[in-house]
């Protein structure tokens, strides 16, 4: 039955889901925009974050510790991955970069599967955020409201780092012309490594925040990765605000269409992507010069 209450709760579901997608996609798009590398292991980063958070939580029982430790693990994985593998691929064609990150993603999934098996794991929301909250016109799980808040804060943090700091200035200059930045005597590779780490951490962080919402499995990253692709195609490759906007749009489309018929929710998302491609091939906020 379609009631206003179910409609609004789906809108809120879409907001929570869209916020997570926005966070994941912004990581992906910042990495691509800066390094020029499309990271197909990004979904795996989301998954690793979930498992790292899960382990930290089972050891300590603290949600905050899970958030911090999990993010730290994914940051480290991202830094090491950039240093050991991605760095060799800056001079190579896009296809090679896609292939190698795809392969790494599979390795990550299989390593996690080796340690944790294929069964799904889950984690309860922290006690203070458990239960439901009345919003006046409807009641809604408290944690999902918190998700929107947590993600909004982290998106803002990334935005501030990217647009209001010295590092961010270098990153944005690197997006325009990384060769020129290197000529100015800035260690571009170090900046690239940090950006890759932060971008990966965004996905991992989302993975931890998502833990109390949905159980985790080793191959959960695949569908997230595909959704992030759609988000980026809609929002425009390399555009941070585009990723955020695209994420929210995608989240709402998935939620609202699943209210009508869940089987078609993905089809609806895809249809929107196609329309965007037809009307505006570079995405809603994509820059003309990036193909």
């Amino acid at each position, binding site marked *: 039955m379609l009631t206003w209450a179910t409609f609004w709760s789906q809108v809120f579901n879409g907001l929570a889901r869209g916020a997570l997608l926005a966070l994941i996609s912004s990581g992906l798009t910042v990495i*691509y925009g800066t390094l020029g590398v*499309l990271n197909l292991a990004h979904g795996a980063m989301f998954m690793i974050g979930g498992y790292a958070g899960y382990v930290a939580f089972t050891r300590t029982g603290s949600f905050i510790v899970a958030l911090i430790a999990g993010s730290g693990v994914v940051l480290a994985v991202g830094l090491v991955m950039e240093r050991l*593998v991605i760095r*060799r691929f800056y001079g*190579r064609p*896009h*296809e*090679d970069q*896609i*292939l*190698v990150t*795809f*392969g*790494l993603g*599979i*390795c990550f999934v*299989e*390593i996690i*599967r*080796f340690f944790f098996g*294929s069964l799904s794991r889950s984690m309860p929301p922290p006690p203070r955020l458990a239960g439901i909250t009345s919003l006046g016109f409807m009641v809604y799980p408290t944690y999902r409201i918190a998700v929107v808040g947590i993600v909004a804060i982290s998106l803002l943090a990334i935005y501030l780092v990217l647009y209001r700091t010295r590092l961010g200035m270098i990153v944005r200059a690197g997006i325009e012309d990384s060769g020129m930045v290197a000529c100015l005597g800035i260690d571009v590779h170090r900046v690239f490594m940090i950006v890759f780490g932060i971008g990966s951490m965004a996905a991992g962080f989302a993975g931890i925040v998502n833990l109390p919402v949905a159980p985790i499995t080793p191959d959960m990253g*695949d*569908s997230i*990765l*595909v959704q992030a*692709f*759609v988000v*980026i*195609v809609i929002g425009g*490759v390399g555009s941070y605000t585009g990723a955020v906007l695209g994420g929210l749009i995608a989240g709402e489309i998935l939620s609202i269409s699943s209210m009508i018929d869940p*089987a*078609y929710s*993905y*089809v609806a998302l*895809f249809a929107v*992507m*196609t329309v965007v*491609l*037809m009307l505006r*091939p570079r995405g809603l906020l994509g820059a003309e010069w990036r*193909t």
Partner: protein
Amino acid sequence: MADVTVAPIAPAHRHLLAELATAVALIAAPPLLSRLGFAPDTMSRILVLGLFGIGFDLLFGYTGLLSFGQAAFFGTGGFTAAYLLTRTGMSSVMLSLALGVLAAALCGIGVGLIALRRTGIYFAMITVAIAQVFFFLENSPLADFTGGENGLAGVPAPTFSLGFATFPIHSGWSMYGFIAACYFVGLLVARRIVQSPIGCILAAIRDNPLRAAAVGHDVHGYKLLIFVIAAAYSGLAGGLLGVLQGYMPPDAFSFDTSGQLVMQTVIGGAGTLYGPLVGAAVWLYLRDFLQESAGLGAQWKLVLGVIFVLLVCFLRRGIIGGLKDLIILIGRKPTGAAERSDAGGARSGEGGGVAAAVRRPDPPSMPPSRVPCGAPGPILAASALTKRYGGLVANNNIHFAVEPGELRGVIGPNGAGKSTFFKMLTCEVAPTSGSISFQGKEITGMQVTDVCQLGLTKSYQVSQLFTRLTVRENLTIAALASLRGKLRIDLLKSPARVRSLHSRVDATLELIDLTGRCDVPAAALAYGEKRRLEIGLALATAPTLLLLDEPLSGMSPMERIETVKLLRSISRGRTLIIIDHDMDSLFELTERITVLERGCVLAEGTPQEIKNNPAVQAAYLGPESVA
């Protein structure tokens, strides 16, 4: 450098040899490989994956389009055939397979039209997303037709009747025979495609899509064509999978299927056609070996993932590419010496080239193949041409006309808007306002490809070559555009049968004096040679009007003499417009000169008039010098 060997033109008997060897290998495989522990069904499966991979290799290895969504067509073909055979009572397996291929190809058209709007990473992302939609559609909305998560069971095997006897195909070796026959036919067709003129053009698109479009090929059309062909191969492989297993599994549509295809192709070696087969064999062998003999259980995929990453890092050309390199390495001594002497010869050719050029008789003239248009009036006319980039006015209200047969020079200080002007004339960039007509025909707003097909093209200021292809292949690509038109689907034709292709390429080679270097990859040419090849590319499209953007830039004085001579011979029978900073050469070469300054026409006249024009002198030397 060249990580894929493209050999569009090679002796015919060598191809027959390779095909014969494939047939022998397919026949000899059962007794040999079964000793290694390959079951007949495993070998059939390898062939199905190999066939699936042939289409993908045409798309990725040969054209450079990395799709992560081939499972969509694999599943479409497979489920169409399986549905027809199990639910509609259709009895002919071959007909069902054919209809499956057709369905996959039709989906390929639809998906291709969307995905090919973008290139590079966008293309990869969109194919992934679309394939995922197919997976969802199969799983729930279409579950009544596809069996949803159960798939379709009971797919029958074919039976062949020869009138006097029937040959039913069972699982085991007869199934292997049937699938091997399908594979062989698929391979033959793919080899013909690779060797056809279209194979040449695909290599060009992979190497430099912008130039492929600029010499007059419909890049989008060819991409769509190969995308649909790859989809058809996927559809056939999907159908065969159902027949082989007697069951069509729903995971045919999954992202894993697409990903596995990519990995197998890269492991075996992309751009070889045989790579996917080798990759699939390695994949399935290692899977069984690691799972059973090594007792790794579910970790087999981790091992394969690591192998894949290492291959991408260190052996990007895969197993077949690695073996080729090894063979070259072993047989290096004789060929190495030959290469050295060849390089030495080339070097002396470079050093003594000037003297040789001076001694050389006049290069042969190469008239344009098109009959000059009878329309009276200027061959090219631009009126009120303006181009703005935001607030910057690059060209402002330019009126410009060139008569047929003229040799026109365009000069101007840096930043005068010369290159922008040329880009508008060849329709690379659209003017903000104004119009351009060529041979009396309005061409404003047309595509650069279509304009080139009309006989108007340009040589670039910065060389835009097909760097991984040889000089001869470069020119062949350009010549094919004018000889075949912008899009022609002659997939199975030999380039040798394109009329006057050979003579056109040879004549151009001689004209630009690169006959002795025709088998060298363009990337390995010296600077001056690259510049000549750049002109040659434009010339091989047989233009009636040729624009040359700084053909003399960066050349030594002696190279300039040589190139001026080349330009003079090119100008016979065609109209030329040349931008350059070398005043002396232009004054000597051209009949009329147009001077651009700050986006406007400053002056126009004979070289003598321009030399004496005070406004021009002021523009170049500053106003004081005139006073």
